[in-house]
């Protein structure tokens, strides 16, 4: 049976067909739907882990114990999970283990454009890269075979355009894979200097064997064509290349680490000029050059953003392929906090109080956008707490009373809480606002340890954030309704003047998750002062005459704008 599937859904299907029994992840665009789809299979235990490191460790433990396991994350999540990764590569597996890492060229939903292929190179972990959904599914199964044959975790690398494109997949049955017997072996699974030295030798040996195997693997193949230009490529870029250069000879890589160097060398000798077409870093190009295979690549394509059929054609021919460029100056349409978003009022207050806002990763990153423009810094998951403390140590307490760290509930659990423990331990007067919307918002509403539900929808213990904060040694904890701007302002003022670590929890469910049963507001007899426009609600628009109006189909009735109006003009319909 054939079915249209997202790349991510196909990865999930591949895990199912491969007989996986354990799947873990922390949500992250563009990888989230993998584990959401896996959770629909009753045969597989699936979890949202608190962060990628824990996810990697749970999956690795399952593999050591003998099960086939899969862990999925976005590229920056792999940084969090890098510690277990490098050592797991030494100790190897028992049951197969696949690590899915989703890169985001062009940063559709990310804070950097790092190339995860370098992790494969430096951890000596093989990496497969599919070019459509069918390959995504089949490569997962192949990755398990390699994992068990070579006693190593195996990467499956995707990019946004693979993860979030649908193409046809042929469904197969689930393989009958039993959990392998676990046997204690401290020379393998107990890494310490004496054993790790032995394991490092094993890593080199298995990689050399794998390199020979990969030279003849059907994962890599040649599409014969014109001999003037030969292209080496992989992933979804292979599809672009075929469309952009239909006549060229193409060496299509399914395995991007290790590379079938000798096979590519032969290919290079058979054609005129060798061009490597790859997104982001020159990983393949540099590897070929290091092996003495002349080629070109980044001189045409650069390292920024995504490739496309047009970009490949233009880069190689110099021609442009559209006659309608820049018809008219079109205003940008950046993403915004939704109407009724509980973060909005908090950011308005922070800006009003002149706070230096050290923010974090989530929907509330949008607090940086105009007109709120309330955010000073955003770095990575959980960084707000550490960075805010750095400000205090650099500038002194008296100059940093307005410094406030802001983090969401899911991100706080992911990696914020250790920063809080640090502040208490080192007697830093950190002020923290936890924006608790009771979900993982930006990635599309996943459960987390404080929501009381598992990925499968089962009830579970809900971590109480206030208790967790208090248990870390914080004496000032105040929970307020995020819609109550007066209460938010009072709490933040008190927190900033408190001599010690202070935490304000601004609580309200995400407006997309729980829609208020409130009537929308409307504006009567507007005085055109424009103050309500300053909170940046997409439901409030400016009329040509300068007055404001509320779009009733968008307004959820949160009332934050009502509290902004000095004239009482914003009322219920």
């Amino acid at each position, binding site marked *: 049976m054939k079915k249209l599937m997202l790349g991510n859904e196909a990865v999930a299907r591949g895990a199912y067909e491969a007989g996986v029994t354990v799947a873990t992840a922390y949500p992250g665009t563009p990888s989230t739907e993998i584990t959401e789809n896996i959770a629909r299979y009753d045969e597989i235990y699936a979890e949202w882990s608190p962060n990628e490191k824990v996810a990697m460790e749970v999956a690795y433990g399952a593999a050591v114990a003998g099960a086939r396991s899969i862990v999925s994350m976005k590229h920056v999540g792999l940084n969090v999970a890098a510690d277990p990764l490098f050592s797991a590569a030494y100790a190897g597996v028992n049951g197969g283990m696949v690590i899915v890492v989703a890169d985001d060229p062009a940063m559709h939903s990310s804070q950097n454009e790092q190339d995860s292929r370098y992790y494969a190179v430096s951890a000596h972990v093989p990496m497969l890269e599919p070019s459509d959904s069918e390959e995504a599914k089949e490569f997962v199964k192949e990755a398990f075979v390699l994992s068990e044959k070579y006693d190593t975790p195996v990467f499956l690398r995707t990019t946004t355009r693979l993860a979030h494109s*649908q193409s046809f997949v042929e469904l197969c049955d689930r393989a009958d894979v039993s959990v392998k017997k676990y046997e204690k072996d401290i020379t393998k699974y107990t890494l310490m200097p004496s054993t790790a030295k032995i394991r490092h030798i094993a890593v080199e040996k298995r990689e050399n064997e794998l390199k020979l195997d990969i030279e003849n693997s059907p994962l890599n193949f040649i599409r014969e064509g014109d001999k003037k230009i030969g292209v080496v490529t992989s992933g979804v870029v292979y599809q672009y290349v075929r469309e952009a250069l239909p006549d060229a000879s193409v060496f299509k890589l399914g395995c991007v680490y290790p590379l079938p160097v000798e096979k590519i060398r032969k290919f290079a000798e058979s054609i005129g000029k060798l061009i490597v077409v790859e997104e982001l870093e020159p990983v393949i190009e540099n590897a070929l050059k290091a092996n003495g295979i002349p080629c070109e690549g980044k001189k045409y394509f650069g390292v920024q953003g995504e490739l496309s059929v047009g970009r490949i054609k233009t880069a190689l021919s110099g021609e442009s392929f559209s006659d309608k460029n820049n018809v008219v100056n079109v*205003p940008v*349409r950046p993403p915004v906090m939704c109407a009724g978003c509980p973060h909005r009022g908090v950011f308005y207050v922070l800006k009003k109080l002149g706070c230096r806002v050290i923010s974090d990763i989530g929907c509330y990153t949008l607090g940086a956008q105009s007109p709120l423009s309330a955010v000073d810094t955003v770095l990575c998951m959980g960084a707000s707490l550490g960075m805010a403390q750095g400000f205090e140590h650099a500038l002194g307490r008296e100059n940093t009373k307005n410094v406030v760290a802001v983090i969401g509930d899911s991100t706080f659990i992911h990696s914020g809480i250790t920063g809080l423990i640090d502040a208490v331990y080192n007697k830093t007067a950190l002020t923290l606002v936890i924006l608790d919307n009771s979900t993982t918002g930006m990635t599309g509403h996943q459960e987390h340890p404080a929501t009381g539900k598992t990925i499968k929808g089962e009830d579970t213990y809900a971590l109480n954030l206030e208790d967790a904060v208090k248990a870390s040694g914080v004496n000032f904890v105040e929970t307020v309704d995020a819609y109550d701007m007066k209460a938010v302002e009072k709490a933040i003022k008190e927190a900033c003047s408190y001599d010690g670590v202070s935490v304000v929890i601004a609580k309200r469910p995400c407006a997309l998750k729980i829609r208020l049963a409130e009537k929308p507001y409307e504006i009567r007899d507007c005085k055109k002062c424009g103050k309500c426009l300053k909170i940046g609600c997409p439901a409030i628009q400016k009329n040509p005459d300068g007055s404001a109006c509320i779009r009733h189909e968008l307004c959820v009735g949160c009332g934050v704008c009502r509290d902004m109006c000095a004239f009482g003009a914003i009322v219920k319909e």
Partner: protein
Amino acid sequence: MNINVLIVGVGGQGTLLASRILGKIAENDGSDCKLSEVHGMAQRGGSVVTHVKAAEKVLSPIISEGDADVVLAFEQLEALRYINYLKRDGTVIVNSQKILPMPVITGAEFYPENVTDVLKKECRFVIEVPALEIAESAGNAKTVNTVMLGVLAKTVGLPYEEVKKAVIETVPEKVRNVNLEAFEKGYNFK
């Protein structure tokens, strides 16, 4: 089915559902098909674009600039933004709805005037559809996407029964009838 459709709009307008219905038609009639979607940050009221490609064999899931048979725009400004994807003799089907982006609301930028006129100057075939009004008359403002799908089906000659079948198979049951009504109204729009 043999067509490249670029569906553009604002996060939350239902572009994904429209592309999935087109994917269903391809699945049913045996064409190859690829859809490319937007998830994550851009969905929060940002500009969104979904690519639908159907043919005997589809390679890139992304439509190249100058290669869309139809730009199906759920919002005027978004039609302008992506017009460079349209083929020389392609068709723009544009919902007459305007949704102001935040920089326009705050006064930092201006919403261009007479968008349809600009489109008509640039493209030979422009169809303007009051899709929000039609959707409301069908009974649900959120069915703008199926109204637009109806206009698309009629314009490019997709078989009525096949599209209807795909709508039934794709849309959740509780909003199926209102979507069929919206599709019907879009299909019969003149």
